[in-house]
């Protein structure tokens, strides 16, 4: 699947690079609405670890999602500096504004055509279903998240806390 996607999007792409646990990830710039400093969040009871809270972003109530949880990373240290990415996504078929925590937001990166390569089967420790591909950028590697699979609530909304033991698809 990743191969097909990579080829279909052969044109030049703008992505926003951010870091989680020292790794560099990226998402398409077109989905990013703004980047904010952390806001006070309201915990949602029984919501599960992936979308644990809601917050007020300029008068709209926005769910906070924790990508670390989905990628199987440890929760961020509570005193670590964080940035908030506000994304406009389509979730469960409806346009939804979502806020996502990142350790740091770096910069907008221009990826030339063909720069995104499929994920090597063994080269990555995160669930492959959530990764669209990898791209080389300035002697480093940029991991492109697959926003079609990494954001939907379905995987855990159905059976609460569990359901993300590993990559099912």
């Amino acid at each position, binding site marked *: 699947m990743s191969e097909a996607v990579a080829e279909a999007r052969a044109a030049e792409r703008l992505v926003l690079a951010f870091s989680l646990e020292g790794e560099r990830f990226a998402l398409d710039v077109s989905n990013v609405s703004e980047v904010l400093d952390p806001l*006070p*969040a*309201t*915990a*949602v*009871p*029984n*919501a599960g670890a*992936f*979308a644990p809270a*809601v*917050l*007020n972003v300029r*008068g709209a*109530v*926005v*769910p906070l*999602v924790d990508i670390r949880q989905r990628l199987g990373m440890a929760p961020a240290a509570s005193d670590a500096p964080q940035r908030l990415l506000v994304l406009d996504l389509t*979730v*469960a078929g*409806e346009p*939804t504004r*979502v806020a996502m925590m990142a350790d740091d937001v770096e910069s907008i990166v221009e990826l030339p055509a063909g720069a995104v390569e499929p994920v090597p089967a063994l080269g990555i420790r995160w669930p492959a279903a959530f990764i669209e591909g990898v791209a080389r950028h300035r002697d480093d590697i940029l991991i492109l998240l697959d926003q079609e699979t990494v954001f939907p*609530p379905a995987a855990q*909304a159905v059976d609460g806390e569990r359901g993300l033991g590993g990559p099912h698809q």
Partner: protein
Amino acid sequence: ATATAEEAAPASDPAAAAADTSPAAKPAAPPAAAPAEAGAGGEAAGQAQGGASVRVQAHRLDDLMDQLGELVIAQARLRRVAGDLGDISLDTAAEEIERLVTSLRDTTLSIRMLPISLAFGRFRRLLRDLSRDLGKDVALRTLGGETEVDKNVFDSLGEPLIHMVRNAVDHGIEPAADRIAAGKTAQATVTLAARQAGGEVLISVSDDGRGLDPAAIRARAVERGMIDAEAALDESEIHQLIFAPGFSTAVTVTSVSGRGVGMDAVRRMVDELRGTIEVRSELGQGTEVTLRLPLTLAIIEGLLVRVAGSCCVLPLSSVEECVELPASEDERGAGRALLRIRDELVPYLELDEVFGFGREATANRRRVVIVRVEGRRTGLVIDEVLGQHQTVIKPLSPYHRKIEGLAGCTILGDGAVALILDPAAIVKAAQQARRLVA
């Protein structure tokens, strides 16, 4: 005023109803069939006051409501800021704006209100058809048709009411011979009644038929594996069983061979509107099913409470009273959770436990908010009552929509997000959990 005249005549004189129905039913049908047309609301209000009316597209009313919601939130923020600054002239202005926003809200909500007689109108014909098909002589009585409900509530109301009326005629009312044998009049009566109580509208369908047979319902529920044979259920719990999906009242209660219409459809709609259903029935005397629905869906009066560091809103319409949780109860183990309030034992749930929040380590006396769900009182233990607020209900995102017990969220004056709780869903979930354990 024509709508009320139409229904007043048959109500006062059932015999005249038959002659009166055909001309009355026809003009009544079109507005009831197209309740989505917001113009109907304007017309009805206009008629009531004898003034002119304006037809408006429904979505404009929705837009108006959305904008009003934003205004209410902004006004709450203003009040907060004014309170913090303590400037007298700012306070005065903020108070004036609050007063204006409140009256603007009331006016806007009233524009969206439709008299329930528009929904009752179509039942005259439905009842006539039903009586003919089932060979039963049934008169329709309507009460409180002038009661008004919000357009959205109105739109969702038609379908469940049809289920309920059908159910009453098909299963509730016995054949004429049985009625006479039981010392009743040969002609049965189905009553549609509406009235307003606080922030809720109560709509009931009642019949003077044979009533629900708790033993038969119980036997059927046991047979279907819905409850345990030894389960201790009181009458109201047994009555609630008829709303379970696929529970056919046709076979269980009455053995009438009708196409039993699932009352679970009624329950689903009522749940969606955050309402509750109450059933009262006496064997041999009749059954009354009452829907308690919120008057409006967009803005509610809410009680702001604190649960383990989070602010939550309980709809004021379901709150009966607040009491202090006696310290002796608070320290007790989990063996029982009952409070004695004026000679009545009220079960309670600890919201921080229900929500999986850690217990707050403070010396504060905790409080219990008593809510009424399906006619029964239940206490919800919270940490603090923060006050009463006008609350705009914002829907939850797909991430949180399926969580039981949450009706939505809102933004408080200080910008924080507060969750709006659904006491009925919380109590029901707790009951189900208990049944699974038992």
